[in-house]
């Protein structure tokens, strides 16, 4: 036991006390922020603005203006020119024309039968998907409104008809939680993703560490002092602690930056986040909704989530770490390593693919089974925690995970013991299993 501690100490310190550890710990969140920032930026960039000239020969819409898109990516203007001159303008100038598209409501357009004559759109190049979709939705809205007016429906009644419905989700009866699912989903995804990345990154680290010991023949020197199993376990635990240290540092960084954001930017939040009211973009979240969502974050029970995250990360790490160590011990070159790593990474990747389905339907059967199978539970179970699954499911999953990692560690130790001192032999996956079960 004392020797395992010495090995853990070396594996841990030799990784944590390096410049690269410090750099990745600091740079990863910056990279993450940049990634999110870039996504947001690309979204705001969206489509470049499209100017659409409207010519209403029918006079049906003469008393109104078409609403522009909320982000001004599509907007309308009403030139005092004839259709023919506008048409020749766009035809001769192409993309250089002073507008991007010409929307014509021909004479004889009937509001009660809009498709008999139909609205026409002329563009120099192909109209973008966003513009087409916006025009279809907008015209649909406008025509419907006009139809109701023509039918002499009271204006208040029209407003009333157009009112959007907000559903108040009540999952835990007597304990109202508006918009709770969204927040729980976001947190679930985030946790699942962090575990996924961590398993792959630190699993690979274990594998490479073991391979280094083998190919540099360090293990020859060490195995006369320690048992191969101690060496393997020491490495897995040491690297696992490196991972936990990194999480801890990130948590501290997040708390510090949170504090900074609230202190410095919190005041501007109300004004800054306010989006202009829009006619059609239903997916725009307005400031009120954000306030409600932020309110829900306080309703999430973070302590059990954090506890489950720790437990399932550690459990999953031990389970997969042992397998990665076994592969590192078995291989002699990088080519072998890649082909043998695949069977271990596939269940991790399947888990992250299942995550979408699981979060979409947290009480469905996929979620249930994926949260129990030890190969997927490290990612699935903590992601389910914000949805507050029944306690027995959590405990069963935890117990199965413990059995799971005891099993893989047992198997891996046998593969490791055989592989670590075997050189020059090309190993197949089948052979590994033979070492594991018969060796």
């Amino acid at each position, binding site marked *: 036991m004392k*020797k395992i501690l*010495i*090995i853990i100490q*070396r594996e841990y310190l*030799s990784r944590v006390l390096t410049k690269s550890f410090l750099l990745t710990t600091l740079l990863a969140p910056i990279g993450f922020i940049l990634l999110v920032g870039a996504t947001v930026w690309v979204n705001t960039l969206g489509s470049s603005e499209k100017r659409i000239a409207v010519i209403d020969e029918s006079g049906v819409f003469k008393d109104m203006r078409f609403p522009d898109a909320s982000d001004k990516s599509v907007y309308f203007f009403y030139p005092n020119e004839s259709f023919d001159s506008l048409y020749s303008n766009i035809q001769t100038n192409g993309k250089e024309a002073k507008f991007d598209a010409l929307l014509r409501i021909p004479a004889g357009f009937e509001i009660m039968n809009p498709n008999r004559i139909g609205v026409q759109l002329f563009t120099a190049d192909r109209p973008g998907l966003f513009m087409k979709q916006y025009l279809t939705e907008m015209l649909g809205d406008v025509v419907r409104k006009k139809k109701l007016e023509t039918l002499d429906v009271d204006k208040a009644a029209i407003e009333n008809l157009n009112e959007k419905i907000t559903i108040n989700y009540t999952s835990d009866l007597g304990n109202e939680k508006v918009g709770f699912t969204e927040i729980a989903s976001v947190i679930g995804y985030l946790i699942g993703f962090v575990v996924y990345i961590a398993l792959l990154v630190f699993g690979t680290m274990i594998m490479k560490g073991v391979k*280094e010991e083998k190919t*540099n*023949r*360090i293990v*020859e*020197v*060490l*195995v*006369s*002092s*320690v048992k191969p199993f101690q060496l393997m376990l020491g490495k897995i635990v040491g690297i696992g602690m490196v991972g936990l240290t990194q999480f801890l540092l990130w948590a501290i960084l997040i708390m510090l930056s949170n504090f900074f954001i609230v202190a410095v930017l919190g005041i501007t939040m109300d004004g800054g986040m306010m989006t202009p009211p829009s006619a059609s973009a239903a997916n725009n979240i307005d400031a009120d909704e954000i306030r409600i969502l932020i309110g829900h974050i306080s309703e999430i029970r973070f302590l059990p989530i954090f506890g489950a995250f720790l437990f399932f990360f550690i459990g999953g790490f031990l389970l997969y770490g042992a397998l990665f160590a076994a592969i590192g011990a078995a291989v002699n070159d990088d080519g072998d390593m890649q082909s043998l790593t695949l069977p271990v990474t596939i269940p991790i990747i399947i888990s992250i693919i299942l995550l979408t389905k699981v979060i979409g339907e947290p009480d469905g059967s996929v979620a249930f089974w994926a949260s129990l199978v030890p190969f997927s539970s490290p990612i699935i179970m903590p992601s389910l925690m914000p949805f507050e699954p029944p306690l027995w499911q959590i405990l069963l999953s935890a117990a199965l995970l413990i059995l799971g990692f005891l099993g893989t560690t047992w198997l891996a130790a046998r593969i490791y013991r055989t592989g670590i*001192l075997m050189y020059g032999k090309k190993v197949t996956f089948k052979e590994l299993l033979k070492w594991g079960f018969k060796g």
Partner: protein
Amino acid sequence: MSMNLQGGSIFGLLGPNGAGKTTLIRMITRIIFPDSGSILFKGEPMEERHVHQIGYMPEERGLYKKMKVREHLVYLGRLKGLSSREAAEKINFWFKKFDIESWENKKIEELSKGMSQKVQFIGTVLHEPDLLILDEPFSGLDPINSMLIEQEIRNFKAQGKAILFSTHRMEQVEGICDTIALINKGENILCGEVKVLKQQFKENKFEVGFEGALPEHFQQHFKVLSQSENRAVISSENNTSNEVLKYFIEQNVTVNSFKELLPSINEIFIKNVEKAAAL
């Protein structure tokens, strides 16, 4: 296979490549376990606790490249049961002895092969083992370092420690080992003290240096293996060295040198491996 190592002696384990030397050593160091048979350490069946009294330097050896010399030696020492402080003291002793105090903060990857061999040797003996197992200790060492290590091996012998020394380079065995075992294909084909073995396999060859002419009937008494102007190598199966010398003196030959030629370990080795192969 059966062999016995004594304290205060150097035991050479010889054999061609693939004979099973490393396998045998791995069994002694409890890396692998024998299918049958037993290994006794100081009269007791070998157990895990005995591993701390063994220092093993494998033939293929490596160190963590990114670690510093001192740090690495402390690590190896602690894995052998030393405390950090004990390890540090012993490292100081060896650093001084090998005059390499300036290396302590160098990374292993900065060392030359010879330098890292020295570090490796210190790592093997740091915990003052009672049994030292060296697998091809001189491979890759320059003559000066070889001599240094050889001297240390002799020092350990003088301190009463047992040394097991595996090699396929015979000339080293001759100079260093007290006892040898010759193994081939996992079998012990020859075992014993070097002195005794040489006597056992001697072919009664003598080298005589002389002045003047040799007696005429000389060739009837001895088989002449080679002869030059004033030197002859002869063999005589039935005579002792004294009897051979007496003959020359009685024949009034001026003998200025006389030596019994004992077989080298190399010759014994080759002969026995060939004999074993023929069987």
